[in-house]
């Protein structure tokens, strides 16, 4: 009896040690589910140069997995990746090439390990099977196999799944300058719970990302609501005052946002009164996110995040607080070895030329956020990604195909070429009507008219 007691306790010790080696999570088969942020989308493009350092690819490396498969597209990517063509006097952003790249991993005889589909909503994860327009990249990843992103991902029998979905449910509306495209909370919750339930049923451990605040992305926050000084992007002082731009409902009010894609309208004088050298035509609905729209988007994001937190608690999933991280980036900035990264467009180092998706550094930083959250939740000791190569990068500048643009732009502190603007908005899933500037606006409450300043 003495001997069997010893061997029983040795066995228990062996299990304990094996458990300690893994912590309480097994990373041997890792699958990523999500949208463009998970796909490694950057500067308006799906491009292997960036997909190779998507946060799931970086996580896989840190988990010790080799052969992590993604739906790679050769450079310059699809659509052709945006490049900074000029910095002074006015930054000009346009496609880096005329033709895009081609998929290079289409014949993989199994679903990809990174199943993320740019533009996907929570509902799409459960139901979407194929592309719904010529510019919808869903077919690239789902390959018309007749199975959803969720089904394909779970068919790989993952032991660990990261799920970062819901960004398009909220931010897709915001980037179209409206609150009319927000997914209702009840259906978001039902779909999110269904997804989490399906992953849990497969036995995989999970990490969930939550949704960032819309006011922390440079796509929304870069341009001022006042007529800008084109040289600096700062509000121009006109007769001692700042003059608000003309929006769809009149002069822009405090709390109204001008989206980055308004630059092409500003360039032809929209939003600027005739008396000050503009066309007098107000900025379109699709390039203004007014205060009440922004408040509605933020409230919806908070509601989504409450659901994500609740489901994470119920399912024992790690919660990766992307919302807090991006808020920190937008307010105090994030310090790395004496370098302060911020969400400032072009200067901050964290956001790419589309003002929505991260740079390579930004994705590496996100990967470490996932790792820290996973280690904390599961007691694991996954090592963080080495940020040095992402901080200092490679010395190769992006290619510079010269696009044509009208030099006599008025009041545009940045220039997105028209092609860049259209491609970008399509890649963000903005409906064509909003891209064309002709959506049917919802009835708006009357607002009192304020004075020109403030």
């Amino acid at each position, binding site marked *: 009896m003495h001997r069997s007691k010893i061997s029983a306790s040795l066995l228990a010790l062996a299990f304990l040690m094996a458990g300690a080696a893994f912590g309480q999570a097994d990373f041997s088969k890792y699958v990523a589910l999500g949208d463009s942020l998970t796909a490694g989308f950057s500067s308006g493009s799906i491009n292997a140069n960036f997909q190779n350092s998507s946060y799931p690819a970086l996580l896989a490396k840190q988990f010790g997995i080799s052969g992590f498969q993604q739906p790679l597209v050769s450079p310059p990517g699809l659509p052709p990746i945006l490049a900074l063509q000029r*910095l002074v006097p006015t930054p000009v952003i346009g496609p880096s090439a005329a033709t895009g790249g081609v998929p290079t991993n289409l014949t993989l005889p199994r679903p990809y390990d990174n199943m993320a589909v740019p533009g996907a909503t929570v509902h799409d994860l459960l139901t979407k099977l194929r592309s719904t327009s010529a510019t919808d990249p869903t077919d690239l990843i789902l390959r018309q196999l007749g199975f959803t992103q969720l089904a394909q991902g779970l068919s790989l029998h993952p032991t660990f799944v990261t799920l970062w979905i819901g960004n398009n449910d909220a931010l897709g509306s915001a980037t179209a300058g409206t609150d009319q495209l927000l997914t209702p909370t009840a259906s978001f919750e039902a779909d999110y719970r269904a997804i989490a339930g399906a992953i849990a049923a497969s036995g995989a451990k999970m990490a969930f990302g939550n949704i960032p605040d819309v006011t922390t992305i440079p796509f929304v926050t870069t341009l001022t609501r006042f007529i800008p000084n084109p040289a600096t992007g700062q509000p121009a002082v006109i007769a001692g005052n700042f003059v608000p731009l003309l929006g769809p409902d009149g002069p822009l009010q405090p709390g109204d946002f001008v989206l980055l894609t308004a630059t092409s309208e500003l360039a032809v004088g929209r939003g600027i009164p005739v008396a000050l050298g503009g066309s007098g035509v107000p900025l379109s609905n699709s390039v203004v996110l007014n205060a009440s729209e922004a408040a509605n988007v933020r409230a919806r994001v908070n509601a989504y995040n409450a659901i994500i937190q609740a489901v994470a608690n119920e399912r024992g999933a790690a919660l990766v607080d992307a919302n807090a991280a991006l808020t920190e980036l937008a307010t105090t900035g994030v310090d790395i070895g004496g370098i302060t990264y911020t969400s400032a467009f*072009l200067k901050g*180092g964290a956001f790419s030329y589309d003002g929505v998706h991260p740079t390579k*550094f930004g994705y590496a930083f996100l990967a470490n956020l996932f790792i820290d959250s996973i280690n904390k939740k599961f007691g694991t000791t996954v090592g963080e990604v080495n*940020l040095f*190569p992402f901080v200092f990068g*490679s010395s190769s500048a992006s290619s510079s195909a010269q696009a044509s643009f009208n030099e006599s732009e008025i009041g545009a502190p940045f220039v997105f070429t028209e092609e860049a603007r259209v491609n970008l908005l399509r890649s963000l899933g903005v409906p064509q009507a909003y891209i064309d500037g002709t959506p049917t606006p919802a009835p708006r409450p009357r607002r009192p008219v304020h004075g020109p300043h403030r």
Partner: protein
Amino acid sequence: MQRRGGVTWRVLGVAVALGALAAVPMHAAGFSIFEQGTKAMGMAGAFTAQADDPSALFYNAGGLAFVTQGDGSIGFTYIKGLKAELHGADPFPGEGYTAKQKKLSEFPPHAYYVHPITSTWKVGLGIETPFGLTTEWENPNQFAGRFLSTKAALRAFDVNPTLGWQVTPNFGIGFGGIARISDVELRRNIPANNPFTQSIVDAASLRLKGDFKEGYGFNAGILYKATPDLSIGLSYRSKITVDYTGDARLTPISTGNAQLDAAIAAALPLNTDLPVKTSIHFPDEASFGIAYSFTPNFLIEADANWTGWSSFKDVPIIFTGGATNSLPNVDLPQNWKDANNYRLGLRWQASPTSQWRLGYVYDETPQPEVVVNPLLPDSDRNGYCIGYGYTGTWKADFALMYLPFKDRTRNHSAPGDGPFFGTYKTDALLLGVTLTF
């Protein structure tokens, strides 16, 4: 310059000349330098209860009370950095990254003069270099920590007039004033994001120089010869704050991209003096020692020192210029803790003219892990000393100290601070020489 508080300019001038040699790599815990006399150094600084040479002005002013003849000492400690390396850790600067500091050779000096006035009243004047620091990284424009610090140098030396009173034949007290003169230099690079490559490049190098400024304090000591074989000593040196004013200057570094260079030139006040001020709060220090002669030729002393490093909370850098010649103010948090060190020394009189010394010190670092940084990477240290003293018509003391630091690893950050992780490895060798006549 005008007289200040009774300290003559000529003495200050001499002090400045000596002090020009006084920038040293950190080799006592924090940036204190306890090697202010070679006889004491041979015993690893366990000298508070002996204090029987002119360096008593530093180690225990109470020892001045027992001086019977006029004596002067002059000497220096040669400090050679053997190793000062950083081995990086993830996430930044990353596993496999290594960097080295420039190997330093410095010569902090000391000088003392003591003289009895009456049989019970004695005076002395000391010039000491009790604090100093140089941390300078090789290849500064490639060093991964260059946006934190590429060079940090601090020089401080004290002019220490002292009075000793032999209260009874075996009890003496001493009291001194300290005029400290110090200057400071900090260098780092300024980063910019290159929007063409979305990677970090160097925009400019920043050099901040604080001119020599003064601060005042005092020291006091008690030496009690309880029996012919047993002595007890207690010494205290007060804290001193030095407020520096000076200039900073940004020198542009070409990024290789003319448009980016233009954008940087528009954003930063380059190539112009930016008036700046900063402060260093030097700590107070207390020592307690007991010395016992087992035989007339063999003595052992044990000391404990306490240094009030918690006054070194931060280094504020405040730009005092206008809109066109300022940068945002910066505060470099330090949050050091009070620290102790423990010393054990022995001396053996081999012959009437020869004395051998051995010593060991364990020196705790005051620096918490989360603020270990390339400006000041500190660690606990062990010091092993051997010394020799010759006594003839004049005296000569020699000592050698091997000072290996414990490897110091930083893997955690303070809230709001970002990572600069890795392990610092440091070793130094010290050689002391003092002549007394």
